[in-house]
């Protein structure tokens, strides 16, 4: 199979205006992925599916990722004059990054026996509306998994035929897999609490009399 850079170049040539980038994975598995903008995601995905050299006809997995607002710290080498001598000093540069949600698709080719190609869509922010393009019209296998991502992360899929909650009930308002979700406080009875549960159970402990 082509490298991700080659796929990216061909996709950009085929789909004018598509903004693609390769997200590097530095871990030993080196599973790099292709980040596509939401507007052109559908057309790019169609290209990946129908291109005779790729033929990624099978979407095995759809998942969501939540990135909170974060402060990234980076070590930068800066030249500074210290005591009259110019030196290279390491400085920690801090940048703020707004949070976002991601939807990740793992694509394989059954007919050409290769894969996976990992496709990502990223929302601009975490607040509503967080919309990405639904790829269910291209791969039916994405239908329930996109519903699950909607249910647990609150990502809206444009073009999904039946976007309802799938695991939680319909009147449920929260998105439980988001990192800022707090589960309901029903820690009133914990026989053997420990760690985080201990902290939560402490709020329910009977008030102890303060001895004078």
């Amino acid at each position, binding site marked *: 199979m082509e490298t991700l850079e080659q796929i990216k170049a061909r996709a950009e040539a085929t789909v004018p205006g598509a903004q693609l980038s390769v997200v590097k994975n530095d871990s030993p598995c080196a599973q790099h992925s292709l980040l596509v903008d939401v507007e052109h995601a559908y057309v790019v995905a169609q290209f990946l599916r129908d291109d005779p050299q790729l033929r990624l006809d099978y979407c095995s997995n759809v998942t969501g990722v939540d990135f909170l607002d974060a402060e990234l710290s980076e070590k930068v080498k800066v030249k500074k004059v210290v005591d009259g001598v110019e030196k290279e000093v390491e400085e920690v540069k801090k940048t703020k990054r707004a949070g976002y949600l991601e939807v990740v698709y793992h694509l394989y080719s059954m007919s050409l026996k290769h894969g996976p190609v990992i496709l990502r869509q990223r929302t601009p922010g975490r607040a509503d509306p967080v919309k990405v393009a639904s790829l269910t019209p291209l791969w039916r296998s994405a239908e329930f998994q996109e519903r699950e991502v909607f249910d647990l992360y609150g990502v809206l899929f444009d073009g999904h035929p039946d976007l309802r909650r799938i695991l939680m009930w319909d*009147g*449920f308002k929260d998105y439980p897999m988001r990192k800022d979700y707090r589960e309901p406080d*029903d820690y009133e009875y914990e*026989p053997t609490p420990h760690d*985080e*549960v201990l902290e939560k159970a402490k709020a329910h*402990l009977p008030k102890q009399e303060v001895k004078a």
Partner: protein
Amino acid sequence: MDDGLRNELSKQGVVVVKLEELYNWGRKNSVWPLSFGLACCAIEMMAASMARYDLSRFGAEVFRPSPRQADLMIVAGTVTKKMAPQVVRLYNQMPEPKYVIAMGACAISGGPFKQGYNVLKGIDRYIPVDVHIPGCPPRPEALIHAFMTLQRKIDAQKLTGPDRARHLNAELPSEFPVPLFGEHDLVPTKNPNVWEPAVVVR
């Protein structure tokens, strides 16, 4: 009648029993469970009913597919918050006298999913549970032990008096409120008439 006289009579071929004993003897040996499983504990429940462990030795081999014909609900598995109203509704549809065995860590407390967002921390928050079995999952022997514990409990139930069995006391409820789906959790989160958290003093 004291036990000695009864013993003497039985040697002469005269069997004397109290109505209460006869009634409970019949009931405890024909407890029909509801065929109802929620997760992996149900596999152990099925194993218990099959030839190797043979729950039919205790008169409980007839798993009924309808709550209207069942005496015992074995809550075998994880009760999710989405499933909890249906479990309570099934229990309400069973005719009295009815009993509940909460089988496994999930059914008694939430088990390994206790800190999650969608698992009920024990079915005893909504319906009265007669026997709790710990284990993940409990072995069929543990279910049989729970079953024998339930049989002893049925055997000890009174037909008359203020502490008579629930199904003979019209003042005690036989149906319990079904929780509703709320915006963040089930409403209410527990039935205070059935379950109150034990006071943990530290």
